[in-house]
């Protein structure tokens, strides 16, 4: 592999560190409400341009900053149909349990597999470094997890096929 994973994750870590400078920002449109500007885009001035960090077209990360919220979307490398299926199942597993993951967005952004939404209230409750670490660790793990699942799946398929075919070989 020409590019290793480490520099890619390092760039994401630095960008997240800079993007996660959030403050409380009550809505200008709806009174008595404070809502994530990146989702509603009420005020164009407080939503800077989004950033895409990519290893290649199959593996990239979209970071959309705003004054009180940041949306981080990840596209995981999927080289064949098995990986596509595993990735879809894996993302589905997480999004169904989104309330336990706190910063996970229930629906990924168009074109990406998994999205996080971090608001200023998360930063009040949790350490910023810890949130960044969580996202980086998650990205490291999801690659490994999908590869492991694929190997396990292939092993089981092979075992099942061998067991099925063995009855023919005995008759023969």
């Amino acid at each position, binding site marked *: 592999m020409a590019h290793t994973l480490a520099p890619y994750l390092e760039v994401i870590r630095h960008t997240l560190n800079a993007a996660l400078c959030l*403050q409380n*920002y*009550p809505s200008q449109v709806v*009174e*008595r409400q404070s809502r994530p500007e990146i989702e509603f885009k009420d005020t164009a001035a407080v939503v800077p341009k989004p950033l895409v960090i990519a290893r290649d077209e199959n593996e990239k990360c979209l970071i959309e900053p705003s*004054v009180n919220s940041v949306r981080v979307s990840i596209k995981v490398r999927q080289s064949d149909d098995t990986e596509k299926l595993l990735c879809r199942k894996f993302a589905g597993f997480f999004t169904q349990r989104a309330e336990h993951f706190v910063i996970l967005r229930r629906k990924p952004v168009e074109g990406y597999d998994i999205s996080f939404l971090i608001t200023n209230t998360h930063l*009040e409750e949790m*350490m910023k470094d*810890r949130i960044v*670490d969580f996202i980086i660790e998650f990205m490291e793990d999801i690659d490994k997890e999908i590869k492991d699942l694929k190997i396990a799946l292939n092993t089981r398929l092979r075992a099942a096929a061998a067991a099925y075919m063995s009855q023919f070989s005995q008759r023969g």
Partner: protein
Amino acid sequence: MLASLIRRLEEPDIEVVNCHAISLDEQFLALCANAEEIYIFELVSEQYQRTDAVLAKHSQRVTGLDWSCHRRLLSVSEDRTAFVWQQDSDGKWRPSNVELKAQRAALCAAWSPDGDRFAVGLSSKDTALCYWHEEVNCWVAMKVGKAKAAITALAWHPSSQYLATGSTDRHCVVYDVSMSEEGAGPGFGTPQVTEDAGAWINDIAFSNGNVLAFTCQDATVRFKSLVDGRDAPVENIRWRGLPFLCLAFVGRTQLVACGFDYVPVLFLQRDGAWQVAGKLDLGAAVPSSGPGGVRESYDEARKRFRPTSSGKAATSEHSNTITSCCPFKDGRFSTSSLDGTVIVWELS
């Protein structure tokens, strides 16, 4: 260390401080724990002691607090209201109403240096300038200016005649707000100086030496000396770190900026030019790891449960974003942070 820590306030039940204010004589401290109530602390034998007073009039998060020179406390909130609190002779804090006429949340508040008027920055893109109206017996607001986005920062000129506002539409505007006995002056509400900041403005400060400083989300602090007129050049000082959220002049030539870096940073004017003097809280030395493999593996295991992996939090006094900063006399200033602490510093 360039600054020494005078006192530190940490309450077990206060986890987040989103704003605070200390009166000019340092006697009273008001703070809001990211909720509707305001707690009052009093200075007793060099430490702040919590008093029984809990000011609960707002129905949403309090966003701004400020003490006037007459020891009145101004509080503004996201519920579009403001109150002016004054202590009675029996020690109770009595609120007086403010007719704010705000359409949206109030974001910031500042008393004029003479203590007669105050300004409130609003999410409805304008500023409410309030004065005491004798006939109706309450504070009445007059609207000043119209920005393209919410007003997030305010600063009064020491003469109380001019008001600087900073908005998320990237512009910093200084308005003439002079008033006479009869009402608004002839030039009331006219913009005197307009500056483009390049990013949304987080805070503004006015020095006694007529210098206007403002900081934006791009981690710069911009200085403009108004002695040289309204077309004076803007000095743009870039900080190689995260953006600042609050500014405070602690002298004519010293400015303290605090924000997402968890530490206060000092800016100095030397030979007519502003420059970064450095972090005021250099942090404690990193403790060396204990001897023995068992100890190391224990540390290793404990790292997993520590709130931070880089250990940055352990080396600075504040362990989260500094949200407000207020200066008082003798080079002293106080900072409050989202980690629930308030610290009073003194420049050495």
